[in-house]
């Protein structure tokens, strides 16, 4: 599997520490860091210093804030796990927590939406390092008081800090801030209640190349994978998913809700979506298609029904069709509206009955007078056209005969229904060969 080259972890940390907008770079915060891994199992005390119980877990609330505040503590008191409100914390040291009042309401803990448990859900779990472009495990989490509340401010993914936790006593609790990564630059993916979203992460993820993002997705384990994809912007997710291996994508879709799958697949190039859908089990495919907008679903259903060995199976149905009586300006406007799509390099011109006349390249349109009618531009060479039932081998032949960059697919009435680009053909061919020559990595 391809991996992005990764900067060593301490450089990543240093780079982040140098950024002044991050909390970790503030001296006061750095000096008050408390290691979560060290704190678990330590005493929770009342204001007089008497031990009430031992800390089992720390509950955080995540939402709009970049640094999630501690909403409560789970404390083991006389063999019972009780929940203590986070507002009661008066002092936090690396080896103990002191509460502000002797009177405490002991309530049994029940998970609320938008909360997660730092030890049970985050520590030692997989986490995405957005800057280092990889999936790692959290070695430690750091808490610090900030803005009137105790918050999660940093995460540590270094192996050194992991080893530190193996030591007995206070050695295991000593913070190693050199390796701390600011919480704002990670995306943690946890548990049943939902994903830890940090406001900074979404923005950071959108800076990634789709191929890198695809690698990250592939590196995550099942539930984390689904959670990660769901937190991505659907447009971005669609771009990344287009870069993924077919099998991998199939597995991923099984872990996503039909609604999310439908959202993402609608945004992918139709030929790519159809290819994935074709491989799914019938019931699964149907559940996704029925969650889509009906026009998109209809189009995809048609594509899915084509055999992969035929032109219809590899074409994209996303074509920009204009009438011969439209003006050059109309055509250009349509292109601009669709500039996000890979297929927007020209328009397909049809006559009044919808029959194929020509494919006009964007360059020709730009060179022409915007007010002129497209009929004037129709000229040789006319585009090569095939029907949806044309076998791949013939499509290849047509391509090599006319040396164009695309072929138009038409129906029996000569109406354009799709287009095959050279790269679609390359994909299709390499995939067919791959059936016989695919070799997996020898990672065992």
């Amino acid at each position, binding site marked *: 599997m391809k991996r992005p080259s990764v900067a060593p972890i301490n450089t990543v940390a240093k780079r982040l520490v140098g950024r002044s907008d991050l909390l970790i770079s503030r001296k006061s915060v750095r000096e008050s860091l408390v290691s979560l891994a060290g704190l678990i199992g330590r005493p929770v005390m009342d204001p007089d210093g008497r031990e009430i119980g031992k800390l089992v877990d720390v509950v955080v609330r995540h939402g709009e804030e970049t640094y999630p505040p501690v909403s409560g503590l789970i404390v083991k008191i006389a063999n019972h796990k009780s929940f203590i409100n986070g507002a009661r914390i008066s002092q936090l040291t690396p080896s103990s927590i002191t509460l502000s009042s002797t009177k405490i309401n002991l309530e049994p803990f029940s998970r609320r939406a938008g909360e997660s448990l730092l030890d049970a859900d985050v520590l030692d779990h997989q986490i995405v390092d957005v800057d280092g472009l990889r999936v790692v495990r959290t070695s430690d989490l750091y808490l610090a008081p900030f803005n009137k509340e105790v918050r999660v401010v940093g995460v540590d993914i270094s192996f050194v800090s992991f080893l530190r936790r*193996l030591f007995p006593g206070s050695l295991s609790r000593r913070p190693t801030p050199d390796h701390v990564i600011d919480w704002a630059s990670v995306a943690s993916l946890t548990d049943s209640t939902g994903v830890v979203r940090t406001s900074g992460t979404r923005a950071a993820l959108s800076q990634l190349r789709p191929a890198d993002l695809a690698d990250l997705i592939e590196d995550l384990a*099942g539930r984390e994978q689904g959670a990660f994809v769901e937190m991505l912007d659907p447009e971005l997710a669609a771009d990344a998913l287009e870069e993924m291996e077919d099998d*991998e994508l199939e597995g991923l879709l099984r872990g996503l809700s039909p609604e999310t799958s439908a959202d993402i697949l609608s945004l992918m190039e139709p030929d790519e979506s159809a290819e994935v859908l074709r491989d799914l*089990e019938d019931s699964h495919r149907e559940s996704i298609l029925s969650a889509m907008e009906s026009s998109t679903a209809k189009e995809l259903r048609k594509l899915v029904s084509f055999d992969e060995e035929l032109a219809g199976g590899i074409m994209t149905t996303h074509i920009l069709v204009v009438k011969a009586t439209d003006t050059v300006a109309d055509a250009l406007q349509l292109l601009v509206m669709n500039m996000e799509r890979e297929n927007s390099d020209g328009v397909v011109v049809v006559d009044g009955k919808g029959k194929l006349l020509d494919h006009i390249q964007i360059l020709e349109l730009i060179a022409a007078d915007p007010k002129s009618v497209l009929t004037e531009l129709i000229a040789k060479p006319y585009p090569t056209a095939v029907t949806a039932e044309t076998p791949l081998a013939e499509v290849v032949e047509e391509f090599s005969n006319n040396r164009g960059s695309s072929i138009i697919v038409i129906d029996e009435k000569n109406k354009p229904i799709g287009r095959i680009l050279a790269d679609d053909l390359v994909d299709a061919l390499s995939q067919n060969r791959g059936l016989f020559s695919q070799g997996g990595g020898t990672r065992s």
Partner: protein
Amino acid sequence: MSQLKIPSGRKLRLAAFLAVMGPGVIAGLSDDDPAGITTYSQLGAQYGYRMLWTLVVSIIALIIFQDLGARIGVVTRQGLIGLVRQKYGARAGSFSAVALILANLGTMTAEFAGVAAAGQLFGVSRYVTVPITGFFISALVLRGTFKKAERVFFILSAVFISYVIAGFMAHPHWGSAFHGMVVPSMPFNRDAINIATATLGTTLAPWGLAFIQSYAVDKRLTKADLTLLRADVWVGSALTGIIGFFVIITCAATLNHEHITNITDASQAANALQPLAGALAKDIFAVGIIGAALLAASILPLSTAYSVSDLTGSPAALDDKFRDAPLFYMTFAAITIVAGGLIMIPGISLITILISSQVLNAILLLPLLAYMYGIARDKKLMGEYVAGKRSLLLYGLIIAVIAICVLAQFWFIFNL
């Protein structure tokens, strides 16, 4: 490894399965490595048919836990060690990694011992065979030409199927064999406990458990592939059982029959093949041992290195550069060098190493199996695949059997 790549839906189910000969079969056949063959030979030579039931128990344990490992890998998509760290914390994760490393180191030493023993059959010193094997394996694996070589090793180790024929030709006492399989009995002494523990340890090897799980993760197998993967595990385990069974009855019918009850070197074990191969017995035995040793020795360091990097959280692979995955390559090198080095200690008894490494396996299995038990019952991790009461009882029972063997082992060590 052959790719477990299943065309979805309609096409080629059977073809896919045949092309697979996947991880279960590899892990199964690698169980019949030098240590396995030696342990089974010793069991047959020393106790005849009487303790065949220990093999039956071991195979049942193998099927059940390999099946569980495959399921955990597919459902959680994480390696065993990483999962232990996630569920039980840093110390438990490191502890399980250390247990696995020690077990694998022992088994790797046994693979080298097998090569050394086979070499000695032809009068080639272990000071020649072991270093050459070490370099050869490392070069193969690190250069990535391992896939083709793997098939060759696979075929070489399949030589052990000759035990099946030899078994028939040695005219074993089938009645006694059947009795030995279904009626558990054994003398209560140190040797018997030792060989019973070694049989459990060599059959249900720790590395096999880690291997099957990381394979499922690495090849990104999904729940839809699970049926096929499980079939593969069952076939592999059954194959191990069949070969093990014939090794034991062949040795029972030949060596035990001739009162050779303590195998002290490989040529004695090779003698069991004489009814089939006559003068060629030694050669066939040597070829099989070398093939099986190389097959296992090329997977072991890799599997160990994978598990160690799994502990750190970012499983590494062969296509990573040294700079990106130093721990991965360092583990690989350490396992190979230390295991090879141990065999080079002058005067060390190869047969002792072969069998005691498998006793070590059994001891180190205990924590690993206990962690697997914990993971299997974790609803949050396993979801709909969480183990039911009856499965858990079965897992517990197997763990208890191994624990009893290990405890008895310790009891004899400290009382004699």
